[in-house]
């Protein structure tokens, strides 16, 4: 009897949890979109120093999925999220400063991740300008960049870059012992995306 109750509950719970996912996937199919999930990625933020040289803050923790549609006038559905707590610059102390003092990741979920949504591209293959909405440090702004999209197997390989003005996102001016980071940093994203199975959560590396 107990086994039957557990089995019934499991079936109900699984149905409840998977139904919305299946419905979202069906919605995407209905609108002509194919959902692509990020399989592997590297995000690199190039931070030029005020007195020359630069450092890179890197992470592989980009996850999420986007929907692609033949009609490129519509924004791509989905959300790409970067875990800012995993950014590394090559110097541990600088990582601490970056995460805690400037990105303020300890302030909560709105600060631990950067999100890229409403991505618009002019074409789904080759070099193309793109627009998107970036949420970072609790602030949301539109960004513009360039992307190089190449079909690869069932999915795509994407190299994109876009400039970000640190001050526009309310991030304190990064400076340490007389040397600062220039206001404009460049974000580079390299990722491989493949068609997602119905139940998708993205992968964090």
């Amino acid at each position: 009897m107990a086994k039957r109750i557990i089995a019934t509950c499991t079936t109900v719970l699984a149905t409840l949890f998977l139904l919305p996912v299946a419905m979202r996937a069906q919605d995407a199919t209905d609108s002509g979109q194919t959902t692509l999930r990020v399989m592997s990625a590297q995000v690199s933020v190039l931070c030029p120093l005020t007195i020359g040289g630069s450092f890179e803050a890197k992470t592989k923790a980009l996850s999420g999925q986007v929907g692609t549609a033949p009609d490129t006038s519509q924004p791509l559905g989905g959300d790409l999220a970067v875990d800012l707590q995993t950014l590394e610059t090559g110097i541990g102390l600088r990582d601490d400063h970056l995460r805690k003092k400037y990105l303020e990741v300890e302030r909560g979920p709105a600060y631990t991740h950067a999100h890229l949504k409403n991505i618009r591209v002019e074409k789904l293959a080759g070099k193309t300008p793109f627009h998107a909405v970036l949420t970072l440090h609790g602030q949301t702004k539109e960004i513009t960049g360039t992307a190089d999209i190449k079909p690869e197997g069932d999915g795509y390989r994407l190299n994109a870059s876009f400039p970000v003005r640190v001050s526009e996102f309310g991030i304190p001016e990064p400076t340490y012992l007389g040397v600062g980071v220039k206001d404009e940093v460049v974000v580079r994203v390299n990722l491989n995306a493949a068609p997602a199975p119905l139940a998708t959560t993205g992968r964090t590396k």
Partner: protein
Amino acid sequence: MSKSSVKGLLVLLLLLAARPADAYPNMIRLGYTSCATCHVSPQGGGVLTRYGRGIDYAQTIRAGEPPDAELPSDALARFLYDVRLQMSVDHPQGGAEEYSFNTSFRTAVAVNEQNRVVYAFGVRSPALTLNRRMGAASLGMSRLYWMYRPKDGVALVVGRDELPTGLGLPGANAFYRSVNNPNVSSTPTQAKAFWWNRRWQVAAYAYGPDGNETQPQFEARGGGALGGVNVWKDRAVVGLTTRVSKADAFDRRNAGVFARVGFNEHVGVLAEHDVTERELNTGRRLTHLAGHAEVFFVPFNWLQTALAAEHLNTVGGATTYRLSPSAEVRLTPNFRLQFSSRSVYANTDSRTYSIQLQVKAE
């Protein structure tokens, strides 16, 4: 020790000289294209700036903030200095272990935002073995110059210092300087100008004797220039060097190339090669090819390893090679351990193992 002895020693120290300063051109691996980011001197080595000291503190096993981290970011550091005590143990192949102690004091005093006086001196003990000593203690001033920085990216220097080189590695130059530029001072009196930006690094200089030459005939006068360009994502700088000089003993012309490349934050190469032509006062003409190539591997910031290969070839004459693996462990901001060996391949091969403990206060 009596007070007068201490005062006497201090005066002596203040009058005399230091060893070449530490330089870490492998910082190109982290995007530091120019030495001026971390060093007071744009050519690198010597006293660190506040930021440089912060980066130095951050690259040890016990990484932390430097003492003045709480000061405002733009605060002028009036008095930058460091004192180093270094104990070395060298074990030559087939010979007795030699112990030596070196002390150096380096300082940069800021008169104001634009003007600094930089000074360095050192005390070097004789090499000691268990039953004898070789040579005498040597004392000397390696640097004394005034530096004027009218704006970011421009510096004028007048005084006594090492001449600029592509890599800024004093040890590399010392290996072949005794053959392709013998008996001249390594820290001549000079005037030099530096200009650098995100893309370019240029230095031009003129120099003359400083009185440390072994004989008046080696008092050289000359000038030179070097230029580097940042060619790849702040991770590769390549450039050219040239120098001409005249002395009673020989006239000298030199040209070379250099490269500093960081493939990633752990691995990179440093290389500097040059050709030197010397015309002796006897009419004899010598051509030397010399070079330093180094692969560095930094698995952690507190563990820096390198394998350097150097060569010195006199056309129609002798060829010498040196292979030098090394490792440096940065225990704390104040303590470092360095291990190295130097294998020289020439007419008579030799190998020396060294361990150095460096204690630093700043």
